[in-house]
C-alpha cells in the first residue's frame, strides 16, 4: 500500500519534471526550542539552477542539509526523485564553503574518493577523473597536494570531486564564499558552464543577491527568525550569461525585487 503510493508519487513527480519537492518542511533543534526552518514548500525542476538567498540564520544551509539527508526534518514532506528523504543518499552531491579536501591525497586522488568509497576504482574512473580535472582547468595539477594549491584551485578540485560522484543534483553551500571577489566571479561563470555541460540540477546557497540572480533560473528568497521561504523569483535571462548582464535595467529590477522581499519581511 505504502510502496504503491510512493511509486505513484514518483511517477507524478517525474511527469512534471520535478526532482525535489518539499511540503511544509520544518526543522527545529533542542526539542522545538530553536526553529531553524519552518513551513518551506517548494519544487525544483530537473536541470534547473536554483539559488537560495537570504541573510544568516534564514535556514538556507539547513534546507540544503535536509535535502542531502545529513539531518532529519522535524515536520513536513520532502522527496528527491519522488522518494522520501531518510538519511544520506547518492542522488545528491555536496560542496561546502571549505574545500574539505584530504590533505594527504593528491588532487586526482581526492577526485577519485567518491568512487573509492563505493567500489574498486577502474581505468574508466581514472579517465573520468582526468577529464573532470581538465574541465575545471586543473589538467596540470593532478598530482599536486591541496596545500600546494590556492584556495580557488582547491575549490575547483572539490567541484571535480562533486562531479565524479555522478549525482544529478548538486548542493552547493556558499562554495566560493571564502574566496576573493575576482576569483569568485570567474569561478561562478565556470560553474554555470560546467553544470550546463553535465546537465545537473543545482541548488546554490549564497547571501549575495547579485550572485544569486546572475547564476540562477529560480531564486528562493529566504527570511530569518524563524527561517522561512518567502518567495520564489523567476529569472528569465537567456544563457550563456556574461557579467555585462548585471548592468542591464532588467537585471537591476530583479535585484530590487529581491531586496524588497528581504526588506519587508
Amino acid at each position, binding site marked *: 500500500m505504502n510502496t504503491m503510493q510512493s511509486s505513484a508519487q514518483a511517477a507524478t513527480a517525474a511527469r512534471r519534471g520535478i526532482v525535489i519537492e518539499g511540503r511544509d518542511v520544518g526543522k527545529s533543534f533542542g526539542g522545538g526550542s530553536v526553529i531553524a526552518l519552518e513551513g518551506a514548500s517548494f519544487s525544483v525542476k530537473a536541470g534547473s539552477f536554483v539559488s537560495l538567498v537570504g541573510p544568516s540564520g534564514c535556514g538556507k544551509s539547513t534546507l540544503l542539509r535536509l535535502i*542531502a539527508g*545529513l539531518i532529519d526534518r522535524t515536520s513536513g514532506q520532502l522527496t528527491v526523485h519522488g522518494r522520501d528523504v531518510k538519511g*544520506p*543518499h*547518492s542522488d*545528491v*552531491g*555536496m560542496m*561546502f564553503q*571549505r574545500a*574539505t579536501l*584530504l*590533505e*594527504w591525497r*593528491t588532487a*586526482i*586522488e581526492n577526485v577519485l*574518493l*567518491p568512487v*573509492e*568509497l*563505493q567500489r574498486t576504482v577502474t*581505468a574508466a574512473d*581514472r579517465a573520468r577523473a582526468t577529464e573532470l580535472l581538465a574541465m575545471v582547468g586543473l589538467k596540470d595539477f*593532478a*598530482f*599536486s*597536494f591541496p*596545500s*600546494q594549491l590556492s584556495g580557488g584551485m582547491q575549490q575547483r578540485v572539490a567541484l571535480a570531486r562533486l562531479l565524479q*560522484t555522478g549525482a544529478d543534483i548538486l548542493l552547493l553551500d556558499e562554495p566560493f564564499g571564502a574566496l576573493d571577489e575576482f576569483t569568485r566571479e570567474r569561478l561562478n561563470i565556470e560553474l554555470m558552464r560546467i553544470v550546463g555541460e553535465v546537465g545537473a540540477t543545482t541548488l546554490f546557497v549564497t547571501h549575495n543577491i547579485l550572485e544569486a540572480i546572475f547564476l540562477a533560473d529560480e531564486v528562493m528568497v529566504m527570511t530569518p527568525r524563524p527561517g522561512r521561504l518567502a518567495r520564489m523569483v523567476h529569472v528569465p535571462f537567456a544563457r550563456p550569461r556574461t557579467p555585462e548582464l548585471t548592468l542591464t535595467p532588467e537585471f537591476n529590477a530583479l535585484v530590487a525585487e529581491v531586496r524588497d522581499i528581504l526588506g519587508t519581511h
Partner: protein
Amino acid sequence: MADVVTQMAATGGKSLRQRQNATHIGIFLTLILLWELGALMGWLDPLFFPAPSAILTSFWRIYFAQGNIWYHLYVSLGLVFAGFTAGSILGIGLGAVVGMNGLVRRFLQPYVIVLEATPRIAVAPLLIAALGFGATSKIAIIMLVCFFAPFINTLSGVINVDRDRMELMRSLGASKLQVLRKLVLPEAVPVIMAGERLALTSALSGVLVAEFIQRDQGIGTLILTYTRNLNMASAFACILTLTLIGFLIFKGMEKLDHHIAYWKNEAGLRRVGAKRAQAWATAQRGQSNA
C-alpha cells in the same frame, strides 16, 4: 650576473656557518680543557666531576677493553623496544576505539582523567609485586609509561576530526570503517606521531626505573653499580651513552615523522607527489598495453 650574486651569497653563508661552527668547537674544547685542568689541580671534587680524560678511559674500558656495556645495552634496548611496541599498539588501538565510540568515551573519561593524574612510575613497585622479578614486570612498567601519550593523542586526534570533512564522508555514503581508515586515522597521524615521540622518550626513562628497582642487569643497573663503587667516570660514560641514544631516538623519530606525515612538509609533498605521478603513468601504460 644573477648567478654570480647567488653564488657569492651561498659561499658567504657557508663561510659564516663554518665560522660559527669553529666558535662552537672552540668554546667546547676550552670548557673541557678547563674541566680537565680543574680536576688535575684538585679544584673539582672527582666524585661529582670526574676528569674528562678519566671518562674517556672509562669509555675505552667498558666498550672495548672490558666490553661489558654491550650486553647491558642489548638487554635494556630490547626491553625498551618490547615495552614501547606493546604500549603503543595498545594506546593507539584503544584510543581509536574509544574515540570512535561516544558511549565508551563517556563512561571511560573519569578513569582516564584519574589515571592521567597519577604518576605512572609510582605504580612500578606494585607491578613488580604482582608480576615478580624479571623481564615481564620490566616490560609492564615500560608499557605503562608508554601507553598514555599515544592513547591520549590518538583519542584527541580522533575526536577532533574536521567536522566538514566528516560531513563530506557521510554525504558520500562512507561506512564507519571507511571513515576511520580514509579520514580519521590519516588526519590523526601527525598527532599520533607526536605521542609516539613522547612515548619512546618515556620508554627510555621507564627501563632505567625498572632496572634501578630490580638491580639485576641492564644499563640502569650498570649505572647503579658504578655509582655505588664510586666509579663516577664509568657512570658518566654510561650516562653519556644514554644521551647519545636519546639524541638518536629523537632524530630517528623526527625522520620517521617526516616520512609518515609527508603532507606536513614541503620535501615530503614533492617526493610523494612525484612518486604517485609515476605510479599513475605506469598504471596507464599497463592499461594501454593490455
